[in-house]
């Protein structure tokens, strides 16, 4: 099973790929709305990619109130 750090790292990599930015420009505590200049719908778009990667199902509500990669990784971690 992944550690939280590994999950966070994988989320950052997926986000970088999905939103076409350099991986090293993103860090766990970044506010992804601000950093990537995205809205909540674009953030939801990333969830499908995350689901496929981790082979889990993440309901939309898991993203509710989440604004940084680390918290998102924590939500994923509880479902691994």
């Amino acid at each position, binding site marked *: 099973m992944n550690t939280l750090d590994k999950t966070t790292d994988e989320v950052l990599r997926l986000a970088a790929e999905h939103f076409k930015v350099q991986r090293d420009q993103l860090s766990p505590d970044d*506010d992804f*709305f601000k950093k990537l200049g995205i*809205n*909540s*719908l*674009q953030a*939801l*778009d990333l*969830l*499908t990619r995350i689901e496929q990667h981790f082979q889990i199902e993440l*309901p*939309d*509500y898991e993203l*509710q*109130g989440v*604004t*940084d990669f680390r918290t998102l990784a924590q939500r994923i971690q509880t479902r691994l």
Partner: protein
Amino acid sequence: MLDLSQYNSLGEALRAALDRWPNEICLIEADRERENARLTYRQFKDQALPLASKLQNAGLQDGTRAAIVMTNQSKWLISAYAIFFCGGVLVPLDYKLTAVEQLQLLAHSQAKFLVIEYHLWRAITQSEQFKNLAARTVLVTEAPANADLNGAHRWEDFRAQAEPAFITRKRNDPACIVYSSGTGGRPKGCVLTHDNYLEQCVALTSLYPFWPGVRYLSILPTNHAIDFMVGFIGPFTCGATVVHLRTLRPEFIREAFTKYKITYMALVPMVLKNLERGLRQRFADLPAGKRKILNALIATNRALTRSRPHLKISRALLPQVHQAFGGQLRALFVGGAFTEPETLQFFYDLGIPVGNGYGCTEAGTVITVNDLKPFRGDTVGKPLPGMEVKIANPGAEGIGEVTVRSRTLMSHYLDDPEMTAETIVNGWLMTGDLGRLDPYGHLQLFGRKKNMIVTEEGKNVYPEDVETYFAGLPVKEFCVFAANYLWPARTMVGEQLLLVLRLETGQEITKELVTDISERNRRLLNYKRISGYLAWDRDFPLTASLKIKRAELAEQIRQNRKRSALVPL
């Protein structure tokens, strides 16, 4: 459609609908590729009545307030009908609020019953404020088998077999209490009557009719006034079908259009723009030759639909575009926030009319909507039948505050006669929005008079609610404003909030203070955040009860600072 003039309450009208179209499908609940539920009107009734019976056993009677906090799904509508059947007053709460905010509104509404999804209930029970929950009967949907429900009941098991007694209500009795704002500050609980809803429903369906076979795709939260009307009351009183989609992910929305052959869908500008972005990208990816042909077809469609929509022509000219939307789409409704004319025109030129509307909860949902005769992207349409719109104190260009009079106006704000009196003056609702009626009777909006913002997700954000998150900030005083309230701008897009800081004598804006502000800001939901701050060098004007005189402070700032003084966070 039912003749709604024959009914006195939403419960009565819905009850008649369930008996009128027993074999039509009323609800489909989809989650990604799965279908969780598909119910006929008869099956809907069969699920709702045992729930109503048990609710009556538990003490739900006429006038009892019952809240629903759920995402879009079939149990939302089944529960709402059961509450109306028992004569209850529905309190639909926004499931996207935090648990603390939900608890505040539950306390304000004094709801005795609560229907809630398991994950939302879990968040509430983990909140420190949970002990203050006043609801005495809580029904939780979709709870795992071994979950500790903290005294709540499983919605799925909360059933009684005895025939429930239908409770009649009068037209002017409250049907719902809908919060238009006020989680942190002063709650604005709009008390809407059965008459408000039934009148609104007649007006809306006269322009955009539903009938058996129509399929409405519901993605806006059902607690939102628009979805409650066009995704529940409207289709149900016409025998149509509501398709709930339990995810807002763009790929599943696209799939739902084709899978369920959707007829109508209501959305907020953000979702519409996202659809536009996707389509524009697909068009841009076409080979040059095909793109040229497409542009010519779009131009032809535009010319042929100038005076009114011609769905058959548009579907024949642009079959691939229409097939991507399922081939049956008649119109999209957009509201909740301002939509740019270019976006509306883009869809209209493809033969997909967008009924752009304007409204507010206080007015009973919709005030104006585009009637497509002809389509206009530069306005929010004409007043609905029965809706009088007047511009108060118009300036030289005819722009003034939009005021509204109609049978659909809310009765009052719950427990706040003072705010009610400020908002409804001599029977006219003061919207706080600035607009102008053009010679054709279309309403154009030009900004706001009130101190608030609306995001493109259709969320109303009030500075007073945001301020609570900055309580205890180590400064002498602070206040949150909408930037366009301080410096009026003729726009309704890109609105921002800012924090005005009055420092202690000798205090300076340090890195620590900015970090403190940023951290508090991050605790707010993303659409509620402030965009920057402004240092102010005078004490705030205060009332005798030590509240900030916001209008006076705003005037002082307006006279002495420019928008450029705002420091972005």
